């Protein structure tokens, strides 16, 4: 960009380069997109119900984004989260249907995620395969399992406490899904920035050799990160099942790109060592706002897909341009 301007004085150029776009691109993007929709769509977009709907609808994305920030911070990736959403939602819904127990359903849904995470972690650390390949494979296999166990049918959820806890409940008038988002972000932030585990996650992504000789248990941390990510996806699946009063194998199918975009736009490095939890929240709200605005603008589904892809590409290229060292 500024490199094109030959006459840029040295000082100005230096400042341009050192100004860290990646930190702020999500906030700038957020404000621009918000203003654009507010002006272009007016009242339709800019009303309390619609705005809180955006936050409610992005709750599963936000929860998954928290898990993915940890994965990317260690320099790995998890492509299986979308499939885990479906299989966990279906498992949870089926167990709730068969036992009428909210607790058993939730536990079963989360356990499925933990198992997928352990499998991912095992192949990444013990077998030492690239996480990209491992989670690409489990993404496919888990999606197959979701189809298999549901026979391509939806599983309705009628248990009131399950629906209340995971989807439609309120606490003092605050929608439950907003509380889930806030809690996920708060815990993610605390763990990443204020615990030894978080420090180890970042150190591994930055310089795995230094981490290892410093006594950090690299294998254990990486497995925990993969399990954490999959369990966040499970929770997202339960939130979908609660909000939609049922589960289907298609749940979460389009979420992978949205979550990755939200996290990257939020300022987390794709190459490890840097994780931004609050940025990820802003990123997923930005994605939710785009979704919402494009629907309100009466774009057809195919037009929405194109617009979303282009906007994500622009946002990601602004935030991901790594500094050349």
């Amino acid at each position, binding site marked *: 960009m500024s490199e094109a301007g030959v006459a840029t004085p040295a000082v100005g150029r230096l400042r341009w380069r050192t100004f860290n776009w990646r930190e702020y691109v999500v906030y700038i993007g957020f404000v621009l997109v918000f203003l654009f929709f507010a002006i272009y769509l007016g009242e339709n977009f800019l009303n309390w119900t619609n705005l809180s709907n955006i936050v409610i609808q992005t709750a599963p994305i936000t929860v998954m984004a928290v898990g993915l920030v940890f994965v990317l911070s260690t320099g790995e990736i998890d492509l299986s989260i979308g499939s885990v959403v479906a299989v966990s939602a279906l498992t949870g819904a089926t167990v709730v249907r068969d036992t009428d127990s909210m607790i058993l359903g939730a536990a079963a849904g989360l356990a499925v995620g933990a198992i997928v995470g352990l499998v991912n972690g095992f192949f990444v650390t013990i077998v030492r395969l690239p996480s990209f390949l491992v989670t690409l494979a489990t993404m496919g296999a888990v999606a197959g399992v979701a189809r298999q166990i549901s026979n391509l049918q939806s599983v309705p959820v009628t248990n009131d406490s399950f629906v209340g806890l995971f989807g439609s409940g309120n606490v003092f008038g605050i929608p439950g899904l907003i509380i889930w988002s806030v809690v996920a972000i708060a815990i993610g932030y605390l763990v990443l920035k204020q615990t030894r585990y978080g420090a180890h996650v970042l150190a591994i992504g930055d310089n795995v050799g*230094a981490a290892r000789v*410093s006594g950090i248990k690299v294998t254990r941390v990486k497995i925990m990160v993969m399990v954490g990510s999959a369990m966040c996806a499970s929770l997202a699946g339960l939130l979908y099942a609660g909000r939609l009063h049922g589960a289907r194998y298609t749940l979460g199918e389009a979420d992978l790109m949205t979550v990755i975009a939200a996290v990257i736009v939020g300022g987390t490095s794709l190459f490890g060592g840097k994780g931004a939890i609050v940025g990820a929240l802003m990123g997923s709200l930005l994605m939710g706002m785009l979704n919402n605005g494009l629907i309100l603008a009466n774009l057809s589904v195919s037009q929405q897909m194109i617009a979303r892809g282009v906007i994500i590409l622009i946002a990601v290229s602004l935030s991901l341009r790594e500094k050349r060292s």
Partner: protein
Amino acid sequence: MNSEQIGTTATVPDRSVAALSLKGIRKQFGGVVAIERFDLEVQPGEIVALVGDNGAGKSTLVKMVSGVYQPTEGEILLNGRPASFRDASDARRQGVEVVYQDLALVDSQPVYMNMFLGRELTRGPLRLLDRRRMARETQELVDNLDVRIPSAKATIRELSGGQRQAIAICRATHWASSLVLMDEPTAALGVAETAKVEELIVRLRERGAGVLIVSHNLDQVFRISDRVAVLRRGKQVGVRSIAETNRNEIVAMITGAA
């Protein structure tokens, strides 16, 4: 340059128990013998230089003492007790600190987090990081050692190569209970930065640590070390006290021209 420091080599360390002693060390990689029958002692408060041509086996030797490799044969004693290391962090737990040439620092973290890497301090029932205390202790340490960095909270990426190496040495100084190993710690540094790092190494000796340093720079070896061990093609050619040798002899030992 550091003439007054050369004069202080007459420190009298407690010679009763060696910080490190290597007995009959041998290392074989498949069919290649990298080290053969190597013996050496490093006393507390002593700097021993390890010199030799490229491929002589210096790094291999350091890696065995730091737990990265296991010796094929032979014995390693730390403070008189036989020691064996499962891996590098095991050696670290037993009081061996290493300053690597390729800087084992985490670039995007602040200085204080690097100083406490793998040993972070926590507080409270939730065991949250005690960043303030780590930053304070780090600041005290670097001030004590007269290392000039913008702040203990500065990110490693913002520091020069010399400042980074100084941080690595400060960390080793802080945690080493008996022995510090250094593999070409000044190879990538300029003149002024090298002088600073050498000053830190000499301070380590004053604190009573044993230091084993690999260096290709003979001027440096003569400036800071007490004794020098020469390695040629995996075999120990000899150990000399710096006061009783000269450059020509060492060069001859390294090249085998004697």
